[in-house]
């Protein structure tokens, strides 16, 4: 009753927890990522803006005058570089072909041609972040305009100042942000596991209840219901389940009632038939005896009535027997007998000893209901004699802790399509002999009797031709372990010589 392994490995609980964690992870990571981006941009923007503004201010304060003194230019650049904000920077100056810097090289390798072109041609300042050799730099290009007269309008002076500022601190800050985002998200996920498990539990509890209920219903307890709690989808499901269960129970009950009525009807019919039959059968002999004195037609009619009355009596008795099995009223009166002696008596009682070959080794003592075993053997042998061809063989043997009784004939065998139905009631394997001497219930009754003993009855065709019926009965008799749901009733007749009255279900 366990679900397949794959389903267990990826069960509902796992999926729920995973889904929960996924949602938590996505939101945590998204939040962290967005926060990180904002923070990073803020850090960078602040650093850049500070740098641009202070660079412009310092440039305006310490810019060298024109005409340019190439030798004094560096001192001005040192002044600007000394007031670097927020981080140290190196200042480069370009004027015509003059190059100077506050560093040890007059020309920077970090400044890009794009920035220099922009600084020369644009009336505004520009900046650019550059990553070189894994390090980030902020580079600012600042063209210097000069007023033509003091306080007047300005024209480009041709002097361009550049600042190159390593962004090491920002990189450190941003790395710290990443670490913080990661370190915040992972414990967050771990914490999310707890509500995930709780949520999975709350979802799974009704699911589990549903599974138990379904299992219970499958086991036949159709009155199983689930308590409905709350108003959520699970409650809807439980309600639907309960309604379906109620309808199913109702339908099954109707079916059972119908089946019970049908069985009772069959039983009642046979009962009602039996009384008139008893009268008819008592006088059947009278008819037979006096038939000779009647006219030929009347004699035939009378003999027909007599013969059919006998058959009818057999049919009604068989019907009654089947009804008792259906009503689970069939009673088993077991006794320990010699199997070979029992079979021999069955054959001799019916004058079959001459027609049946036997292999009946003595010494198989078995606990069974002799009358029912007699019925089984008689029905099987009778069936073989009627439908198969002689010789019919009855063989007793032992297999494990079971007595094997085989009845074999040498006829054409059973049609393959008939084989699965051979023990069905009134099943006629061959329409041509639909009106045989049997009641049509013989094999069904035999099977019921074998089942009542806790044994098995099989039919098959043997390779050499002919049908083989195999009965297996436990030597120990029907044990309580193999009993049906009713179980064996208390033994009756305790003083009897080891007879046990065992009431068992027919099926």
């Amino acid at each position, binding site marked *: 009753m366990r679900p397949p392994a794959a389903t267990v490995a990826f069960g509902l609980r796992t999926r729920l927890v995973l889904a929960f964690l996924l949602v938590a992870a996505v939101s945590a990571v998204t939040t962290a990522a967005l926060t990180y981006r904002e923070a990073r941009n803020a850090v960078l923007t602040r650093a850049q803006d500070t740098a*641009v503004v202070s660079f412009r201010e310092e440039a305006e304060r310490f*810019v060298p005058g024109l005409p340019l003194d190439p030798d004094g230019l560096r001192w001005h650049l040192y002044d600007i570089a000394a007031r670097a904000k927020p981080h140290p920077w190196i200042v480069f100056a370009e004027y015509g*072909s003059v190059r100077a810097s506050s560093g040890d090289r007059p020309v920077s390798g970090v400044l890009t041609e794009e920035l220099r072109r922009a600084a020369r041609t644009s009336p505004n300042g520009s900046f650019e972040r550059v990553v070189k050799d894994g390090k980030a730099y902020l580079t600012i290009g600042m063209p210097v*305009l*000069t007023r033509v007269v003091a306080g007047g309008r300005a024209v480009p002076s041709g002097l361009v100042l550049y600042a190159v500022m390593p962004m090491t601190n920002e990189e450190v800050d941003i790395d710290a942000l*990443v670490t913080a985002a990661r370190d915040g998200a992972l414990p967050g996920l771990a914490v999310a596991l707890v509500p995930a498990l709780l949520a999975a539990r709350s979802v799974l509890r009704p699911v589990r209840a549903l599974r138990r209920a379904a299992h219970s219903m499958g086991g036949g307890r159709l009155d199983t219901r689930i308590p409905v709690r709350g108003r959520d989808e699970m409650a809807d499901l439980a309600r639907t389940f309960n309604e379906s269960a109620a309808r199913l129970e109702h339908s099954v009950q109707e079916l059972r009632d119908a089946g019970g009525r049908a069985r009772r009807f069959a039983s009642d019919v046979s009962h009602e038939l039996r009384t008139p039959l008893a009268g008819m059968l008592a006088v059947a002999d009278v008819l037979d005896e006096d038939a000779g004195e009647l006219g030929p037609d009347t004699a035939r009619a009378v003999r027909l009535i007599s013969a059919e009355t006998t058959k009818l009596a057999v049919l009604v008795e068989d019907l009654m027997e089947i009804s008792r099995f259906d009503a689970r009223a069939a009673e088993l009166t077991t006794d320990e007998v010699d199997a070979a002696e029992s079979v021999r008596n069955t054959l001799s009682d019916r004058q079959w000893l001459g027609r049946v070959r036997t292999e009946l080794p003595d010494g198989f003592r078995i606990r069974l209901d002799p009358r029912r075993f007699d019925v089984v053997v008689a029905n099987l042998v009778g069936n073989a004699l009627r439908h198969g061809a002689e010789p019919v063989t009855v063989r007793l043997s032992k297999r494990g802790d079971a007595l094997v009784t085989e009845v074999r004939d040498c006829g054409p065998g059973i049609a393959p399509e008939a084989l699965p139905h051979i023990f069905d009631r009134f099943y006629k394997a061959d329409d041509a002999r639909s009106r045989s001497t049997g009641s049509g219930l013989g094999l069904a009754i035999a099977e019921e009797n074998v089942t009542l003993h806790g044994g098995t009855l099989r039919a098959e065709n043997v390779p050499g031709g002919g049908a083989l019926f195999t009965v297996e009965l436990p030597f120990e008799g029907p044990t309580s372990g193999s009993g049906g749901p009713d179980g064996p009733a208390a033994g009756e007749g305790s003083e009897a010589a080891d007879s046990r009255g065992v009431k068992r279900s027919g099926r």
Partner: protein
Amino acid sequence: MFRTRRAGLLAALLAVVAWGPLVGCGVQETAVIDAGRPAVADLLPPREGRMLLFFYSPSGELLPVPRIVEAPWPVPAEGADGPDARAAVTALLAGPDTAERRAGLRSAPSLPRSASAADRVVTDGPTVEVRLRLRVARLPAPARDQLVCTAAFAAHAQGAVSVSLVGQDERLAPADCPLRPVPAPVR
């Protein structure tokens, strides 16, 4: 199995969602971004102590180049035909001096190097007329601009005058210096 494959897909998606924003961590390069107004300062010596000539930088920009004059020369009255303008044009036609050449400044190649070519400068209202002993008709635009700007800024502090070049061959239409001073941004 389909289910396993789907789980794998889910994990991959999760990884992409999780690490996508974080992969671009650290400091990224940017393009060149406008950083607001330029630096503005008083780079030029006082008007009394300098001549403002216009030369080209090595990258081809027309730049105002101040040249200190030894003897302060009086600032001419407005509209006067002062020697200051003529001196500036004369100095321009003489070409950049040593220091200016060292800084990479130069005249347009088409501008003749003949200091004596400057005849006289006549200021007439908003127009300055520069008479040159040159043929001006075939003078290319860079050379004309140098002459126009130098004369305009000599004649007017902010260069806000039109300059008409008059050569031996013809008189050119009045032109403005392309280097227009812009209002200095307020701090």
